[in-house]
């Protein structure tokens, strides 16, 4: 309680002590980003004890591939959360975007009388994503509606649209162009894994080293102060919503490619995992806090634990209950290792 009177001491004294404090704090700030790394290593060790297969290359790639699709949605949600907003509809975009593309290009499911050329599948997927984001932006940013309810409504509407166009069925026989991103491999590693890693890398750069990225933190931290600093708050938020929805569509495309189909319930329930991964990774639901590296370790940790359970021979009927348990456990784990309150 005496720190205030301490700062009142002579200037020379203060400046020398601040240099020391600066170094310490910088190191601390970096450490905070790596808070989950010990947990990741710990789970890897436990996984190895449970079943040595865990550390085999094939299994590690499998973990990365299954997490890459949701990982991109986590990335997207993190962008929005850092800016102090939230978007629940990402999980429906994840299913609807490739669904619409399949509906328009498949010959056996003629949507508009005649089907579109198969190369349009990927652009359509991304465009649907961008469009959903733009509509969310229109309602939340322009019309000032409550973001939680708007995106909750969108989640239900988009889910219903996918069921409507697919008549509850699964789209099969998709064109090769739509499968490529989920099936091709570079250097024996799936393209989706490379893409996921590259996007996280790009996001780390944008958030750490560009004015636009820093603007997200500023807006999430104190909206009015950000506006006072000359940041166009509305435009940044709107763009973030569009980018995030487009990323969710890309994530959906990657899953579609891996499974070579679009199920009517693709993405259903994913949003809980997405929020859990982001919060475990240190992204604050109140905005302005968290890093992309943290979010990445968050989603990685979740999928590693799931894989360990599968390798441990846990009965499939119990996986649902365990999934929820894992999220709670990981939350507790990250609270302990980072030592920070999650708010």
């Amino acid at each position: 309680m005496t720190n205030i009177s301490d700062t009142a001491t002579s200037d020379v004294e203060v400046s020398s002590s601040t240099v020391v404090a600066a170094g310490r704090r910088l190191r601390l700030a970096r450490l905070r980003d790596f808070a989950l790394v010990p947990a990741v290593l710990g789970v890897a060790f436990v996984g190895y004890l449970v079943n040595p297969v865990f550390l085999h290359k094939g299994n590690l790639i499998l973990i990365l591939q299954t997490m890459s699709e949701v990982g991109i949605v986590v990335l997207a949600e993190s962008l929005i959360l850092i800016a102090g907003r939230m978007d629940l509809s990402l999980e429906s975009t994840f299913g609807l975007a490739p669904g619409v593309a399949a509906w328009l290009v498949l010959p056996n499911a003629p949507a508009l009388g005649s089907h579109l050329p198969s190369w349009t599948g990927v652009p359509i997927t991304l465009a649907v994503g961008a469009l959903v984001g733009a509509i969310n932006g229109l309602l939340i940013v322009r019309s000032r509606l409550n973001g939680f309810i708007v995106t909750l409504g969108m989640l239900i509407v988009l889910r219903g649209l996918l069921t409507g166009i697919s008549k509850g069925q699964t789209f099969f026989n998709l064109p090769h162009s739509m499968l490529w991103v989920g099936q091709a491999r570079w250097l024996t590693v799936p393209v989706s894994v490379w893409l996921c890693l590259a996007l996280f890398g790009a996001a780390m750069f944008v958030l750490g080293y560009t004015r636009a990225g820093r603007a997200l933190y500023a807006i999430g931290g104190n909206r009015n102060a950000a506006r006072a600093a000359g940041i166009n708050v509305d435009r940044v938020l709107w763009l973030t919503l569009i980018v995030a929805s487009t990323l969710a569509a890309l994530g959906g495309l990657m899953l579609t490619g891996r499974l070579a189909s679009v199920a009517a319930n693709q993405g259903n329930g994913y949003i809980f995992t997405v929020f859990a991964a982001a919060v475990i990774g240190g992204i604050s639901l109140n905005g302005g806090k968290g890093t992309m590296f943290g979010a990445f370790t968050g989603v990685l940790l979740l999928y590693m634990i799931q894989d360990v359970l599968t390798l441990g021979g846990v009965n499939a009927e119990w996986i649902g209950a365990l999934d929820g348990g894992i999220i709670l456990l990981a939350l507790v784990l990250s609270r302990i290792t980072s030592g920070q309150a999650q708010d």
Partner: protein
Amino acid sequence: MSVASNAPAPVEETPAAEAHGITKRYGGTVALQDAGIVITPGTTHALVGRNGAGKSTLVSILTGLESADSGEVTFNGSPAPGLTDREGWRRRVACVYQKSTIIPNLTVAENLYLNRQPRGGGSAISWRRMRRQASDLLDTWHLTIDVDAYASDLNVEQRQLVEIARALSYETRFIILDEPTAQLDRAAINRLFERIRGLQRQGMTFLFISHHLEEIYEICQRVTVFRDARHILTDDVAAVPTRDLVAAMTGEAAPHTVPARRAGAAASEPVILEVEDLVAVLDAPRANFRLRRGEVVGLAGGNGSGKTQIAEAIVGLRKARSGTISVDGHRTKPGHVSSALRSGVAFVPQDRHTEGYVGGLSIAENVTMTVPKLIGTRGVLSTKRRDALARKLIADLSVKTPGPELPVSSLSGGNQQKVVMGRALASKPKVLVLISPTAGVDVRSKATLLGVVNEMRALGTAVLVVSDELDDLRVCDRVLAIFRGEIVREFEAGWADNELVLAMEGVGTTDDEH
């Protein structure tokens, strides 16, 4: 830029800023009526007025956040830029607002250069260059703040310095300080004033807004008074005695209500509040004191002194490390507001915005929040009884409002604080704890709030006034000075101002570290 002296500059000099014939309406209410101000370069100019006099509106217009309905604003003789030209405004005028515009999760350096971070090659931000620029800036103005610290780790004073540094980084020569001292303790205010004087010597011009008149005599050369949306007077500070200043602000002769204090409160009265060996925070020395029936005791100390922690322990907002608190002989449960409340302790918390009231709820709901039993039977509230009780408290405290159903957020600061006081009084407490009760409150509301203390005393309530404001402490029968968590001295009524201030600063105590 001319070299400024502390004396008021000659009038023929081009004003650093001038507002002329400004009228501004919000719907039906007139916020400013043909008002104006002329600010001479190199001076510190005070703008005073009660809450609602039009000060904030003038600040908004002078900083280009809003346009006037009529009238003109000039800087150094040339007309102000258009509202959309934020850069243009920023070069002419900077403002340190009452509400912090610092972003807590960013570092000091980034807060200084937000949205104009220096870039290396391409569009990537160069953190190294930004840090260097930031520390150069802070060094230039002799501000010792760590550029890598997160803003959330700074105290109020440091945050304010960051805002001032940011204003300076735009090379602005004119800075508006909107109640900069509201949250600072005496030592920090002195440092701030020293800094203002230094900058003024270098040719900077300040517009200084404060509720504390003594500060205006301390730091300002010129003063302008607004009342009811109009300009009342502008003069040299030295030419306007306090009494006239207050009269200009309130429109009547000064309500010079230094409330009567009773020398030596009856020692025969029973002890109501007994604090024994209280350790409010880790490593704090034990605190012992008692309040008798009808006694008013001050707990005086600076911001870091620990006075607030002791008070919060008494009212149950904070769980003390050790020690006991007894009210009327009954020990209260540590850390439980409800237990303290049941024993008869009521309080006005330090920060009314976060702990004092629920802004969206009505005045009636707020003032009766602590006393559901008085206004309802078996858990069902009677709105009639609630409103009746609220009306009585509104009248007692002269809250300016058309009725008890108005949300508290729509009231001015002084009236909000009266509501918080009303909430404390509603339970007819045996012990009333007031933590910084007059912070950010205008002269008249202050008199009302302190007047309540005298009334409560007459009713036999023991009052603990926790503050570093000498005006607040004048109502007390005794004052306990706290320094670094320790009660270092006790003053009987009639103490000398400078002795109490010195005791609060820790001068003249056993181990003098200054």
